[in-house]
């Protein structure tokens, strides 16, 4: 009888916790979207911000967020997945590997503002690049590297060992076995990791304040050279992202509609992350299907 009561209580309590989480999420999203909904116009999405007058947009910031994500992933993915492969398939079980693991864990627990200050020191000042997209991308790489390594390693280790045996027993080399058999099977896990890391890149502000900077030059969206200071693609220009913009407008905005702009930007940020998640998931399952049952 007691066991039955306990069982029922546990069910009720756990269901309540689940409802609480879902409720918080729905409430939060609903609030952010309802506050920012009226700002979701093409004009707001594409025009540049105004420093003193009302009516500025967040076009460059939105572009910066997406471009910074691309740059960060271009650097972080090869490093993170490479290190994950090493940890799962090559690292011998010894003190040195334990030391690597400890280092990765410490790295992952660094507060992002510390990573930002480290980025200021190394990627901004020592390199002499000043506030730049590349400095921001490198700081975010430091920030996301541990997550990517951990997730890749786990995903690879979760592939049944029999897959590896099957491939090696056919005279396939170890490297080819990893690339053609184990990695494709681990893809869903790795995609999840990439999505998590991307969400952090989109939402990160503290690590970017002193690396990618708090301003954006007047961008000329018809100029796509890599070295012109007004080119949106120039990786050596400063770039304020959406998250940083929200923080800046909220804390030191001078325009009469600062609150409005922050609300709109927040709604856009949430929607962008949501769209990116769905897109990445769709792409991931398409890729998984193609790699695991396609003919190539």
């Amino acid at each position, binding site marked *: 009888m007691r066991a039955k009561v306990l069982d029922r209580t546990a069910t009720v309590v756990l269901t309540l916790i689940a409802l609480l989480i879902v409720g918080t999420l729905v409430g939060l999203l609903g609030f952010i979207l309802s506050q920012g909904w009226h700002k979701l116009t093409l004009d707001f999405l594409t025009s540049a911000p105004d420093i003193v007058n009302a009516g500025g947009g967040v076009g460059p910031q939105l572009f910066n967020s997406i471009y910074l994500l691309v740059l960060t992933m271009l650097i972080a993915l090869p490093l993170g997945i490479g290190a994950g492969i090493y940890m799962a398939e090559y690292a011998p*079980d010894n003190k040195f590997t334990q030391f690597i693991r400890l280092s990765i864990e410490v790295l992952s627990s660094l507060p992002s503002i510390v990573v930002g200050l480290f980025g200021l020191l190394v990627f901004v000042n020592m390199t002499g690049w000043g506030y730049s997209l590349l400095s921001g991308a490198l700081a975010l790489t430091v920030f996301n590297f541990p997550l990517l390594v951990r997730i890749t390693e786990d995903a690879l280790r979760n592939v*049944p060992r*029999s*897959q*590896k*045996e*099957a*491939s*090696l*027993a*056919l*005279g*396939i*080399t170890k490297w*080819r076995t990893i690339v*053609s*058999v184990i990695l*494709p*099977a681990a893809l869903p896990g790795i995609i999840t990791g990439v999505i998590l890391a991307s969400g952090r890149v989109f939402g990160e502000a503290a690590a970017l304040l002193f690396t990618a900077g708090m301003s954006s030059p007047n961008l000329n969206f018809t100029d796509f050279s890599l070295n012109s200071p007004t080119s949106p693609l120039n990786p050596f220009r400063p770039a304020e992202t959406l998250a940083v913009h929200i923080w800046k407008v909220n804390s030191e905005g001078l325009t009469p509609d600062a609150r409005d702009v922050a609300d709109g930007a927040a709604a856009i940020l949430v929607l962008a992350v949501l769209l990116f998640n769905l897109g990445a998931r769709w792409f991931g399952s398409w890729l998984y299907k193609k*790699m*695991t*049952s*396609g*003919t190539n």
Partner: protein
Amino acid sequence: MQAGTTVDTIIQTRNVSVYYGEKRAVSNINMDIERNSVTAFIGPSGCGKSTLLRSLNRMNDLVPNCRVTGSIVVDGIEVNSDKINIEGLRQVVGMVFQRANPFFKSIYENIAFAPRFHGMRDKRELDEVVERSLRKAALWDEVKDRLHESALSLSGGQQQRLCIARAIAMQPTILLLDEPASALDPISTMKIEELVLELKEEYTIVIVTHNLHQAARISDKTAFFLMGELVEMNDTSKIFTAPENKKTEDYISGRFG
């Protein structure tokens, strides 16, 4: 043990021992296996029969702290040597595992993957290999209309026959089968056994099995292992009717194991 002077020996082991760390799992095995024969390894769990099998294609390399000593000559080549080309060896010595382990790929790709890796690029040639291998594994008729579906959509018995097809696509001379039917239902088991009898025409087969009836039905020679040692190896009919060793007799008559 057989003298075996006139037969065509394809696998020869001399004083082969296998250690896991300090523990010796297989002790001083000397055996000769004939070309195009079926040899069954029998014995209770943990007797070292699978361990010995896995040293024939160097799969024990995957096990940390595993060490193999002695000489294993396969088709004239010393296997237990640092100089050997392991990928080359495994093309000659194919293996099928206890649990069917098809790749997370299409049926077609499961078979075409290894030949393509080893240099076969021509699409038509690959198509032929896939069809021939599936036919030999008696699976073609069941899957010919769904070659590009995932191999995981097949039943357990079909998956295991796919694994056999995958192994013979490499045109090995030797097939090692590590309890290939132990996880299958009786009908699938029967199909695998029929397959082994057919494949024997072209390949030398070494099969580890827990099923004594299976060993009696399909093998020419039987080797009985106990606690890492080869107790007796002889013609299967001899082992099951008039074993020379008392322990063999006890085992096959079901007194232990």
